[in-house]
Every structure is written in C-alpha cells, then in structure tokens.
C-alpha cells in the first residue's frame, strides 16, 4: 500500500485544536469545531467535513474506503464516538460512545443514541429523521418536532465554542496558511 500523503485543508474560520490527530487528505469547512484529542484518519480516500460541525473529544472518524467520505453541515459528533460512514448528510447527532460502521450511509437529521452500535453486515442508507436508540439499536422515525430549536442550539453552540476555544487552546492551521 502506498504511504498516506498528509494534506490538510482547514478553512480559516474553522477551529481545530492543536492536540488533534489528523492523517491523510482532510478538508475541514468553515465554522467547524474540532476539540482536542479527536482523531480523523483518511486511510483510504479523503475526508471532507462541511461547515458548522462539532467534533468532540476522543471522537474517531475513519475513512477506509477509496471514495471520498463526505460529511455535511451542522453535524455533532459527541465524546468518544467512532464513525466510518462513507457519507453523512446535515444536522445529524452521533451521541457519546456510539459506533457507526462503514456499511451505513447517513441522510439528514438522524440521531444515533449514546452507546449504540450500528453495524449492519450489508450496505444500508439511513433515511432522514431516523433515530437509533437503546442497547439493541432499535429504530424509530422522528416527527421533526423541535427541529428549529435543535438547529438553533447547534448554531449557538458553535458560536460559543468559536469564541471560547481559542482562549484556552492552541489552534492548528491548514497547510496553505
């Protein structure tokens, strides 16, 4: 296997802490927050993260496939989750300590509950508003109620972190800067 070429493209308005492990070809969009101790590995193809995402501590995002792993806008990856999905839409929440396999493609407004394992053996696309919860990873569809409030909270959260994180943490810049 060819060695992994590192190429980090970090938007000037993204906040990526110094203590973050990056490997491979990674693009991070504007207003995205990456907390310290997160890991983003583009082993196979590149990873492209959109705008306004939050990646918390000890999150692991891995792309083992050859194709580009696209993560949309306004997604929240909570502490210690592990995500290998080849594509993720917008406004999803992946909760604390959950795992999502490379066989799953996520649409928009999905929620994966705390500690859930989403590991189907065959390829699968999660529809919009799917909620996965409980120890057996049961599924339901969210009515979409409170969507505006949720989006508002996410937006304010990003704004807060944008202001506070640089005060206490060193930031990382992309290659081009």
């Amino acid at each position, binding site marked *: 296997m060819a060695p992994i070429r590192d190429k980090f493209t970090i938007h000037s308005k993204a906040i990526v802490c110094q203590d973050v492990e990056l490997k491979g070809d990674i693009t991070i969009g504007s207003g995205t927050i990456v907390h310290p101790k997160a890991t983003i590995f583009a082993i196979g193809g590149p990873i492209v993260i959109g705008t306004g995402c939050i990646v918390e501590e*000890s999150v692991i995002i891995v792309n083992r496939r050859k194709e580009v792993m696209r993560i949309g806008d306004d997604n929240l990856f909570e*502490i210690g989750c592990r995500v290998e999905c080849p594509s993720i839409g917008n406004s999803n929440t992946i909760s604390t300590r959950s795992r999502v396999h490379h066989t799953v493609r996520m649409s928009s407004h999905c929620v994966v509950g705390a500690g859930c394992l989403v590991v189907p053996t065959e390829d699968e696309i999660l529809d919009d508003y799917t909620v996965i919860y*409980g120890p057996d990873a049961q599924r339901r569809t969210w009515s979409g109620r409170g969507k505006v409030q949720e989006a508002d909270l996410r937006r304010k959260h990003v704004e807060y972190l944008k202001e506070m994180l640089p005060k206490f*943490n060193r930031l990382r810049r992309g290659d081009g800067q």
Partner: protein
Amino acid sequence: MTMDSPIYYAKSEFIETDTGNKVSRRAVIAGPQNIILGGKTIISHGAIIRGDLRRTGPGHAVVISLGRYCLIGEGCVMRPPYKTYRGAFNYYPMKIGDHVHIGAGSVVEAATIGNHVEIGKNCVIGKFTIIKDCAKIADDTIIPSNTVIPALSIFSGSPGRFVEDLPESTQEMVEAHTKQYYTRFQSQPTDR
C-alpha cells in the same frame, strides 16, 4: 495481592500538589485555572478534564470542582453540561463531592455528584444528571440526560435503571475504601 498492598506508579508520571492531589502528566487538563481539586484527589493518565468550557461573563468562573479523596480513572472524560437558557447558550458548572470514584473510560457530563458516589467503568453519565450521596452506578451503564439518581441506590443498564437499595453502612464503606486507595497509591520506591 491483598486489599492493602500498595499500587505503585512511576514518580515521574504524577505531579503531586501541596494538598496531596496526584495528577498524571498524561492527563489532558484544559483551563486549569477553572478547576478546583479538594485535596488527595487522583487524576489518572489519559483523563480529559475540560475546565475551558466555562460560563460566559466577567470574572473568574469555577467550571469543575472535585472534593477530597476522588479518583478519576484512566481515559475518563469530564466535561461540564451545556444548554440554552432564555435564549443564551452556556456551559454550566459541574460539582463533585468527596470520596467519589469514577471508573476507567467513563464519560461524565453531570451537573452535580454528591459524596461517596461510585461510578463504574465505561459509563456514560448524561448532561445535567444529578447523583445524590452514596449512590452507585454499575459498569457500562448509560444514564440519559437530566436523570436524578436518589441516595443509596444502584443504577445499571442502558438506559440506567434502579436495581436495588444499598445498606446504610455504604457511607463508611466507601469512605474507608477511598481513603485506603489513596494510601495504597504511592510512588515506586527508588531502591527497587
């Protein structure tokens, strides 16, 4: 190995403060000026403590306060909870009492944890959880956000549910256990 045999650690790995706190050099402590340790508290390696996520506003804000004889296990994440209140987004302080042991790999976003609380390994304690005195959380438990855990109860499962009551003697038992752990936890003697 008996219950009172010492647990040795390499002296170079831990920083000991005047009040007897032992903090691993391999722990990530963000915003240390906003964290209060009560004394004789141990923070193991790989732990992440987020004192930087503070309440907005002027002046000094305490983000995380830990009591005496606490133990933060390996790879734990301690992070204050957040919410919007009256349209303003904020992180809120986290308060932890005395004699609290938190097992390895747990994620804690509680608002308040009382005294003499035991939290197992690989637990997830959701945002704004309130844990009262002498409660116990079993290993691998997931406590959803805004849960209140009453005093002297064991919680377990996903989502965490009440299992049974603990005896009245729990306070003395936990206190003895945490104190003993602290005395057992000592640096490797150099002559070995």
